[in-house]
């Protein structure tokens, strides 16, 4: 199951981070290899979203200690847009509405910025629209939605499908799904999860942040981590998520306190 012979894609070492002067991450260590899906579980406030925000370079978060390398490069030295060009993608817990900026202009700006970074010519309008059509199908996103302003007037489920659509357009190598299952009904969850699975390759990895087993039923993580109070206190296989589903987090908390 674990392709140990492969080089690691993401290496987080002793990562400490603060927001508003308060330390949230207190020494995270994590290694992700190409093709792996890591689930990150834990109660509210444990630091899951902070970790994802720190990885994508949100300006409100300050790294105070530790390092993160992504494909051998110093991730923390890069701007948010460079991190995106390098293949990092965050499916936002709360996708932002941007009135007045059309989905088309938004995606074209994003895709062509990445192509420029890769030394490629920008896509012409026809090729771009064709690509939009193809990728839309992956998450069954309506044509009407992609002709609107970014996320404006989208339902909760549509917003999450739109996140996976953008992921399909940008073809990241490491995706972070931050509670992508929250606010989704059973059908929307299936569409989002199946869309995500269609995009998987042996080279692409993901960090899946969730409270629930049902998303993991679809995504089948290789590794499950439990985050408590800014540290990863327990790591296991897919069975750990099932155990948490049945027993909650308290037993892990006690275990870690007595360790």
């Amino acid at each position: 199951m674990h392709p140990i012979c492969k080089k690691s894609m993401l290496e987080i070492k002793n990562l400490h981070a603060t927001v508003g002067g308060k330390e949230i991450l207190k020494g995270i260590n994590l290694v992700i290899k190409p093709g792996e899906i890591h689930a990150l579980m834990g109660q509210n406030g444990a630091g899951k979203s902070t970790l994802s925000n720190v990885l994508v370079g949100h300006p409100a978060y300050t790294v105070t200690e530790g390092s993160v390398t992504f494909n051998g490069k110093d991730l923390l030295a890069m701007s948010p847009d460079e991190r995106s060009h390098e293949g990092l993608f965050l499916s936002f817990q709360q996708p932002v509405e941007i009135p007045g900026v059309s989905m088309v202009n938004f995606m074209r700006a994003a895709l062509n910025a990445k192509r420029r970074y890769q030394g490629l010519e920008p896509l012409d309008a026809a090729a771009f629209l064709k690509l939009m059509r193809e990728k839309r199908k992956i998450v069954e996103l309506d044509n009407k939605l992609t002709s609107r302003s970014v996320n404006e007037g989208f339902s909760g489920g549509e917003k999450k499908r739109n996140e996976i659509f953008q992921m399909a357009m940008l073809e990241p190598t490491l995706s972070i799904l931050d509670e992508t299952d929250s606010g989704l009904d059973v059908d929307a969850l299936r569409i989002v999860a199946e869309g995500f699975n269609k995009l998987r390759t042996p080279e692409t990895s993901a960090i899946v942040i969730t409270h629930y087993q049902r998303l993991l039923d679809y995504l089948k993580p290789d590794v499950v981590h439990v985050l408590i109070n800014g540290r990863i206190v327990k790591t296991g296989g897919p069975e750990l998520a099932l155990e948490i589903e049945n027993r909650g987090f308290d037993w892990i908390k006690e275990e870690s306190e007595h360790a």
Partner: protein
Amino acid sequence: MHNLSAVNPIDQYIELFHTQRRLIDANSHPVLNVRRKTAAAAFERLGFPSRKVERYKYTDVAAAFAPNYGLSLGKQTANSRALDNTTNSEDPALIAALYGTLADVETDAITALNTMLVQELTVIHVPADTHKEHPVQIVHTLRSTAPLMQNRRLLIIAEAGSHVQVILNEKADEQQDFLTTQVTEVFVGEGAHVELYDIESTSARCHRFHQVFADVAAGGHFTQTAFTLSGGLSRNQTDVRLSGSSAEAILLGCVITDGHQHVDNNTLIDHRAPGCRSRELYKYVVDQQSTGAFAGRVLVREEAQQTDSEERNANLVCTDEARMWTQPMLEIYADDVKCSHGSTVGQLNADALFYMRQRGISEAEARMLLKQAFAAEVIDTIPLEALRPRLYALVENRFRSCEDCKLCK
């Protein structure tokens, strides 16, 4: 060329008028000469408005008129030939009957100064029930070998049931100082429809004053759109009188400023008759050290029952040095009306910025897209749909050239 010295601007303008009256009159449409004397007396009495004058409190007028400009009083030069004392009306009696009847020289100094010195008159006269299929476009391109002052007059007469769209484009050579005053009088007859689009793309060395006076008769419609894309000091003052029942006025403004630009929009919508409707939307993007001002007064008189009025001013202030003054005013004397007014001042949405950056869009590009989106609301509101693509392009170019110069980075 007659030079105006910077020593005491008021005296210099008045002296110029008295000493050159013959030359001014000789090279003007005769209708313009009738009101000069009254205007001169009013200007002498009023002087340049200080900041204590309510409607001028956001703009230092005397400073704008102080530099040494030349006036071309003789036969108009080739540069302004396109507008050289032109009228397309065949009804001089009508022009004489209406000219200067809306533009009040007794209370407004800029209007008085313009009326005293003006030599260029453009008349757009649309006879009753005539629909002008294509917009009338007037392009002013300011070019001069020396600093130049220009005074202009536009008279729009839309008789009952007529329909006309007018586009004003003002551009200026970036290497020269210009001062322009324009007074526009708009007579909207019963059931007539007038749209006036004023697009300024001048330079940092240009001072521009535009006073618009409109009267809308019963069932008439007047739209005015002021796009200030670039300039030095721009002041647009618009007074609309809704004098017949069920008349309508829409005032729109889109202002983009940077450098040391100053843009001041001052409006008055006077609801004088029942059942009239007015809408106002002004949006500003104020960057670098530039300053913006908006003051909009909506007056609903006692007889103006069933008035329906909305006024909104929204502003993006992009830097710590940029300043915006906003003053929406609503004055109601009728008791059965629906009126709202409000203003907002804010910065670009940080969450939207970060969302875009996570998708790989650079900060500069993301900021530009958000500013364009902000301005787009005004463009999307203008009735002349054919003009929208050009305005989108002008606004995008305006923001792009700013981002490219990197002065603000």
